[in-house]
């Protein structure tokens, strides 16, 4: 952890502190990328049950739909694999306009 500011913004540390506060949390992770993807494999977006989020899985283009899916994952408890990209019609709607494709794994913490 580079410096205090960066440490504060670290999604996994935030997830842990949210958990300690008793909030329900989902963790989304980029597990695969093709072409030009804005965030590297291993990047995290963490979401709580009220829709607060920290971190990123893209340059901001697919976060909205990952957050919506994360709400379901929090209530149902089953992990999901999401795919966004040019091969997918809905991907254009949510706009991964950079032309890349990404696979995002969304799971509940606990």
């Amino acid at each position, binding site marked *: *952890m580079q410096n205090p500011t960066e440490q504060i913004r670290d999604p*996994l540390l935030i997830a842990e502190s949210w958990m300690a506060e008793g909030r329900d949390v989902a963790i989304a992770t980029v*597990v695969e990328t093709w072409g030009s993807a804005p965030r590297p*494999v*291993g990047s995290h977006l963490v979401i709580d049950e009220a829709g607060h989020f920290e971190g990123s899985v893209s340059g901001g283009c697919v976060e909205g739909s990952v957050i919506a899916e994360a709400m379901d994952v929090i209530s149902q408890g*089953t992990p999901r*694999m999401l795919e966004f990209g040019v091969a997918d019609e809905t991907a254009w709607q949510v706009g991964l306009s950079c032309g890349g494709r990404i696979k995002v*794994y969304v*799971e509940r913490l606990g």
Partner: protein
Amino acid sequence: MDPYCLKKLNAERQARRAALLLTDLGDGRDRVIREGDPVAGLLGDAVKQAFLSGKSGLAEIEGRSFFLNVHVPPPRLVVIGAVHISQALAPMAKIAGYDMEIVDPRTAFATPERFPDIKLFAEWPQDILEQRPLDPYTAVAVVTHDPKIDDQALERALKAGCFYVGALGSRKTHAKRVERLKALGFSEDEIALIHSPIGLDIGAASPAEIAVAVMAEVIKAFRARGLQTARHLEKTA
């Protein structure tokens, strides 16, 4: 994700140790693996590779799908010597994403006026490195020209398996240093890990140019660090 795994992973990351979160995408189970922990079979090979490359990714092993998320500590640069070169190196290291700190027991050199906005310790290396230990993700550059100060840090840097160890000084100075380190029990192979003369050979003349050469050499060593880390792990296993 198992809450216990998250806590363990965060603890490892905050302690500047490399760790990997292994998730079985079939059943969602996960576990934390530390660098050097024994993992058998093909999965073990994939884990080892992930630590060496620092790259996360999917692995299909015996019909099962895994995600390996590897967390390698951000590189740190410890400079022994609050000298003119260090003044130029400090802002460069910051821009390159390195967390830099300076150690120099000579209080006339180690002043906040000469080094604003940087971690500065006006103490002997042996004392401060006790409290803030070196590790394989740390680079050490010794630039005081004073063996009493430099040697303490070199000794510790070699023992800790730092990914980069550089020492300022002419070939003649370095030859004497080699003799002193041999007398302390270091082997020729270990001593050969020290970069001296320090810095990539770009014909650097001014302190700022030497700082550029040192920074470049540190980056080069970090990007090629796989082999040295593997050697250190074998030695300490």
